């Protein structure tokens, strides 16, 4: 398909200003927040379901690949364009269509920013619970595509637990609703298949979400430990004692130092590990939990426990935590963030292993993670201009992934597979499992046009993590190094 012809066809279904095609403009769309890059042929900005449908009908007719995109804050490459493909951005579909206070639901367009929904319903005493760290900027459409989690998913669950229904435009342009306000529709649960499908099955154009009442009381503690494994033990013992806090987040020294530069939260410079504990609910419930949490932390070796005294202090703690990944820019120009999950009790052991890997490969690994969910986020820091370092980062990353899978864990907790982890999918799944998943995708996308080169292993053989940042592609020739 000739690019000029494709652009002309797109301009016949969308107004000119909703089709971006100049090479010098397209360049900013080559990346999301991950470490992969690819230029698209064109980017479209539809405003309505009907426009999305027309674009998808055209794509199917011309057999052009399509990648849907929210804000581009994803960490696994889900919104990285396809070569010669259409990038479909939902950033101009950002209306909140309905707020139903009695049923506690909101109907939104996919381009609505996560935090904006909560701000919009705050005066009603309601909020939208899933809170990815990028919630200041990420879209609900992107959250649905990646089944995003967040710090408070420990108690409240991920996106999938808060979506009631979806309007989806399927490949070919057909529009359908899955789910709805009434609970538990009979038949196959297609909605759950679509949530977390990473844009491989269609484009979500309306989302019906649950709103929750803002908890009566919230308390936030910072427990300071000598090291990360001790903090991990505290997490296991809190949950082991039957307490499910709203959030249990661990940060290592590398991360607290970077955050401290950005936000001055007041982390001690010599603390090896900091655990953020947040409990919420009825005041009485909190009163019961507080003492046990504090004593369990002390038993695990906490040298100090601080209590956020005001709402402003609490906000600073979370601002720091949620900006943690970005704050790593103070340490290195690039990061490769992983997303493995292990059974919670294995955390101390795995975190020790991560430390060992960092030393062996002589790289900095910064850890900030959802400890309560056993969800690791080792950030392997590097400078893409240093080719040797890039190789070490890829090798170190693979060792960590292998160790997590061996510990009974999985590849990804909440960031999605995208391009970043696709080559490791067959470490976790057998060919039969993957084929079953491919069949599901084909049921929705028979021409295999939607985000076609993501999620599944490419079959290229070696486990080549893709690190292509901008002009200088650094495609790891992993074959020589591993396997």
């Amino acid at each position, binding site marked *: 398909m000739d690019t000029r012809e494709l652009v002309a066809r797109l301009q016949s279904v969308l107004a000119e200003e909703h089709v971006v095609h100049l090479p010098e403009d397209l360049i900013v769309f080559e990346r999301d927040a991950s470490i992969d890059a690819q230029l698209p042929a064109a980017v479209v900005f539809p405003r309505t379901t009907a426009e999305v449908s027309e674009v998808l009908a055209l794509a199917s007719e011309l057999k052009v690949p399509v990648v849907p995109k929210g804000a581009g804050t994803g960490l696994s490459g889900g919104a990285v364009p396809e070569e010669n493909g259409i990038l479909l951005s939902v950033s101009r579909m950002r209306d909140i269509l309905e707020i139903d206070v009695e049923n506690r639901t909101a109907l939104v367009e996919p381009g609505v920013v996560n935090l904006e929904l909560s701000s919009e319903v705050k005066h009603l005493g309601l909020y939208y619970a899933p809170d990815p760290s990028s919630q200041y900027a990420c879209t609900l459409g992107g959250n649905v595509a990646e089944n995003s989690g967040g710090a408070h998913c420990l108690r409240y669950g991920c996106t999938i637990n808060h979506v009631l229904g979806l309007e989806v435009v399927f490949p070919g342009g057909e529009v359908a609703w899955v789910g709805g306000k009434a609970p538990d529709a009979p038949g196959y649960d297609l909605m759950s298949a679509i949530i977390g499908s990473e844009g491989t099955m269609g484009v979500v154009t309306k989302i019906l979400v649950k709103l929750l009442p803002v908890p009566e009381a919230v308390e936030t503690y910072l427990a300071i430990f000598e090291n990360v494994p001790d903090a991990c033990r505290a997490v296991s013992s809190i949950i082991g004692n039957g307490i499910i806090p709203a959030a249990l987040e661990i940060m290592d020294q590398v991360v607290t130092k970077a955050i401290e530069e950005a936000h001055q939260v007041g982390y001690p410079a010599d603390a090896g590990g900091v655990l953020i504990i947040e409990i919420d609910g009825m005041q009485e419930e909190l009163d019961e939990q507080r003492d046990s949490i504090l004593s369990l932390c002390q038993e695990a070796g906490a040298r100090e426990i601080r209590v956020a005294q005001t709402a402003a202090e609490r906000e600073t703690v979370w601002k720091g935590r949620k900006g943690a990944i970005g704050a790593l820019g103070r340490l290195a*120009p690039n990061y490769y963030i992983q997303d493995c999950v292990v059974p919670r009790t294995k955390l101390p052991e795995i975190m020790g292993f991560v430390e060992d890997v960092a030393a062996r490969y002589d790289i900095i690994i910064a850890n900030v993670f959802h400890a309560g969910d056993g969800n690791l986020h080792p950030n392997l820091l590097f400078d893409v201009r240093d080719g040797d370092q890039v190789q070490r980062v890829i090798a170190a990353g693979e060792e960590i992934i292998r160790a997590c899978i061996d510990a009974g864990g999985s590849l990804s907790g909440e960031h999605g597979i995208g391009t970043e982890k696709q080559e490791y999918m067959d470490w976790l799944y057998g060919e039969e499992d993957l084929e079953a998943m491919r069949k599901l995708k084909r049921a929705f996308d028979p021409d295999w046009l939607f985000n076609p080169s993501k999620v599944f292993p490419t079959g290229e053989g070696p486990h080549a993590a893709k690190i292509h940042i901008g002009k200088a592609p650094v495609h790891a020739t992993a074959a020589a190094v591993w396997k």
Partner: protein
Amino acid sequence: MKTEVGQPGLVIPEKDNERVRFEGLTDEDLAQCVHCGLCLNACPTYRETGLEMESPRGRIYLVKAAKEERIPINETFLQHIFLCLDCRACETACPSGVQYGKIIEAARGEAIKAQPGGRLPRFLRWLVFKQIFPFPGRLRLFANLLRFYQNSGVQGLVRKSGLLKLFGGFGQAETLLPKLSSEFFAAPEAEVVPARGETKRRVGFVTGCIMPYFFGETNRATVSVLTRNGCEVVIPKSQRCCGALGVHAGARETAQELARRNIAAFEPYGLDVIISNAAGCGTALKEYEVLLENDPEYAERAVAFSEKVKDISEFLVDIEVDTSFGAMDKRVTYQDACHLAHGQRVRSQPRELLQSIPGLEFVEMKNSDHCCGSAGVYNIVQADMAQRVVAPKVQNIENTEADYVVVGNPGCMLQMDNALAASGVSTRSIHTMELLEQAYQAAESNGHADSDA
């Protein structure tokens, strides 16, 4: 089909290859951005357009690509770089500490050098930034002509004639022109205004280049508030425009020259503090150290100068302002001027001042730190986007039902007053210092002014 990005031949004209490109901007400045995207929704132009090219992350990527010669510096590049309001909201949002202002201003300097816009805008830019603002005498002449224009009836004729349309964005600017102050703020002959009562401090005052003509009242109020607080105010006659407008527009050399003159103007007085009452000027003055970092003669002097600069509200809270205010029966809200909140991180101090005025009812508006679209000359050269940006601001102000929207930057006052009037909202803007001065005067007229001797 392959796109043409990165192909040779698209890049900068050969004759330019000799000189240093993107002066003052290092690869490290750009590498600080890790592309996380947390800035996106903080950006007014991204919120309006949904386009990555009109976001901070996108613009940084464009600058990086242009610096690496992956894309040409052409009209498209210029459009994106100049559609930025330079409001710095992204700097507040950025966890990585990217100095976005430095990046965008260097890019503008580069863009102007590489390919200065169309002929008429280029002429007007030259006229305004190089021939008028830098010269106080010409500025005064311009102001006098303007006063004649406003008072003689010519303005009415021109507005009716349709003549303004010929000037594009600059024509729209005519409708934004505020009524000139009935009395210009003329710096006193002696250059020094004594403190009322005991002299506790000696401070410098940056009058701003257009403030004396359009905002004479604001300057008078500022000096009055300072003297009421025991400050002797030094107003060097040789001071010039701060250069902010030039920096924002890419006229870096003019701005650097102005910066050098201002440093030289204030240095002889040996002041500890230099006060600005305009957020945009204050930020520019605090950033002289960046503007002149490669000037061997001035680099250190610029650091010393910038360290002394304080916004008036910041200063007043620091010295524990005299709070013998009279009661004011008004409802007010506060607009965070971008270059105060994001540029100088001054947020709490103006609010603290307002809340110390008895009887004054203070209500926060929604998104008070979202840009109003004024942004220096932005509302003139990017009139359409400025209007889109101000629309939600008007709504948020209206929702507060305030009598005044208080703000610490004159440009914002013009922009908001025009938009409020056009929407039939009765709220009007007022500078923080004018409100404070009114509160002091209220105390005096009530007969219990006891603090000033």
